[in-house]
């Protein structure tokens, strides 16, 4: 292959599309996700957080890459494995940690925890404890956008496992029939909990199911930031111009177990290691370095800043306020206007 890295026309999509600052910020977010989840895991192990959590370490390019074409007005719906989506959509880790620690300062004032982080006013319609639960909700958001003549689009994240829920079928069909501005982004990490797509899903690639809804379907290397931005970017443009929904499948892998109770019995060490070798952050860092967007030192600085932000976020959360017990039924309904 000829060295065409510096020929503008042949540079990868992400490099030729986004400003250097934007790309650096993407790298920052990927690091932030990684460190955030490591911090959360550590806090959990040390007994500071209760409940369970689902880590997306290894899937950072999918979250950040997919959100590259979104503005603050655009919406996302996320999943139980949603920390990455949150951060990609602009959430601040300190409020996320506060939520994990069950504090009033958290995004949900301590009521929701890891599985329910949302920031509706900024377009993050929320993680979801129900597999597939966000699919029709995303379609509803796209309907509101179209009906009210707004220009925003919605990205609906969901897993390979979720693609076998009836909600997937109903949501994609409605979105297609009504030509709504929604992009279905399937994060295919090969397993729904312990069950591989081979054992659960009749097709090899989830994107093949796009045919059933007469919408475009594409499968991409979800650990390749560039490929993700290109595929999702095209789908976002399509949605925004009124041409309707698309289905994009990001092939990726979660390095950690499904949740804290996972013994990893259903997959091999080799498989895990082969995917760790495909670290999406390292691949993206290399892409930026190769195209002279950053140098190694600057990359290190970005990572260190993410680390510092995470450390500060944990301290912020620890110092947070506990909800009042007497408030247990607060927020069930809207509060009466004063």
């Amino acid at each position: 292959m000829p060295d065409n890295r510096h020929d503008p026309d042949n540079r990868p999509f992400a490099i030729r599309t986004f400003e250097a600052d934007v790309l650096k910020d993407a790298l920052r977010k990927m690091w932030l996700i990684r460190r955030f989840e490591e911090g959360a895991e550590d806090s959990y192990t040390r007994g500071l957080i209760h409940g369970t959590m689902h880590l997306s370490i290894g899937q950072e390019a999918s979250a950040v890459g997919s959100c590259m074409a979104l503005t603050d007005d655009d919406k996302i719906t996320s999943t139980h494995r949603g920390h990455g989506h949150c951060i990609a959509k602009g959430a601040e880790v300190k409020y996320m940690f506060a939520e994990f620690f069950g504090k009033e300062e958290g995004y949900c004032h301590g009521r929701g925890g890891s599985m329910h982080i949302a920031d509706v006013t900024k377009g993050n319609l929320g993680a979801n404890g129900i597999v597939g639960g966000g699919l029709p909700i995303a379609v509803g958001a796209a309907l509101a956008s179209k009906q009210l003549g707004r220009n925003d689009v919605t990205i609906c994240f969901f897993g390979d496992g979720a693609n076998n829920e009836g909600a997937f079928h109903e949501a994609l069909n409605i979105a297609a029939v009504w030509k709504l501005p929604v992009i279905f982004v399937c994060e295919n990490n090969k397993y729904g909990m312990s069950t591989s797509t081979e054992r659960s899903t009749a097709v090899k690639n989830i994107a093949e199911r796009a045919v059933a809804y007469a919408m475009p379907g594409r499968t991409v290397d979800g650990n390749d930031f560039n490929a993700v931005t290109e595929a999702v970017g095209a789908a976002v443009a399509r949605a925004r111009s009124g041409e309707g929904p698309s289905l994009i499948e990001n092939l990726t892998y979660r390095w950690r177990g499904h949740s804290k109770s996972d013994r990893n019995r259903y997959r091999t060490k080799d498989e895990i290691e082969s995917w760790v070798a495909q670290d999406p952050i390292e691949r993206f860092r290399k892409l930026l370095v190769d195209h002279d967007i950053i140098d190694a030192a600057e990359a290190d600085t970005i990572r260190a800043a993410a680390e510092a932000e995470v450390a500060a976020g944990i301290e912020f959360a620890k110092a947070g306020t506990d909800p009042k017990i007497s408030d247990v039924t607060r927020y069930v309904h809207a509060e009466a206007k004063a």
Partner: protein
Amino acid sequence: MNVPTTVEKPGSRELSYAEALREAMGLALERDDRVILMGEDIGVYGGAFQVTGDLVDRFGTDRVRDTPISELGGAGVAVGAALTGLRPIFEFQFSDFAMLAMEQIANQAAKLRYMLGGEASVPVVMRMPGGSGTGAAAQHSQSLEAWFGHVPGLKVVQPSTPEDAKGLLLAALEDPDPVIIFEHKMLYKMKGEVPEGWYTTPIGKAAIRREGTDVTIVASAIMVHRALAAADELAKDGISVEVIDLRSVRPIDRETIIASVKKTGKLVCVYEGVRTLGVGAEISAMIAESEAFDFLDAPIQRLGGAEAPIPYNPELEKAAVPQTPGIVDCVRKLVGGQV
């Protein structure tokens, strides 16, 4: 039917319960661009029970949207739309089919505000045609209000008159939280005085449909009319029955019911849903733990649906839910000290 009509208001006319609902939706569609209707066959067909009727002609197919036969997806789309700026009114063709959408209703719509610590609002209205009497058998005749009444985050109403059908639907629309309306299929054609224009019937308030001193009947939906017929009958025996129209299953109007039971000392709950764990169980328990307990001079009686699915045969179907003679009988025995 034997409906005690409200004093005629200026500008009120006779409408059917279905027409009253349609009028409410029409007003809402006119007043607020954010209002849309969604449901199966609510457009050109006019709805399985002709409730939406001609609204699609007036407001077009974007605002009166026929959905595919996808209850879970459709309800979820309404939830997502409500979360992001619309005010959808979602019609289930029969409330029985809402079983397919319980996830979006009870896990999402009802809980989102709470899970998000107050930072989200899901102002969606879901319309549920319920009840038996149409000969449509077990999967088209249920009264599932108790399920919804058990879910914090929802409000659940059951209008028994055209006036309340309109008023409660408009109140639901103004509510920032999800509201479920159980409409009774056998009431759709019932006529009554309905005020013109926009008005709301408060959610959470029962209505005393007939005052009395000997026994309180709390009834809901079509049972209100059967209770009133029973009260007429019982009046001939000199038994004075107070009939309370529950109207709201969640929240329940404790004050009105407690005050009435304190006055009469006797309570009969009449409801169409399955007796066990039905609405009457809650009313009974609410009274049995309240200050009205000390005023009770007889066991609390419940007349609810049989412990069976709704059967097809018309006589069996009638036998499966409370009817007027059964109410009369129950009150007579209660007043006569025979229970």
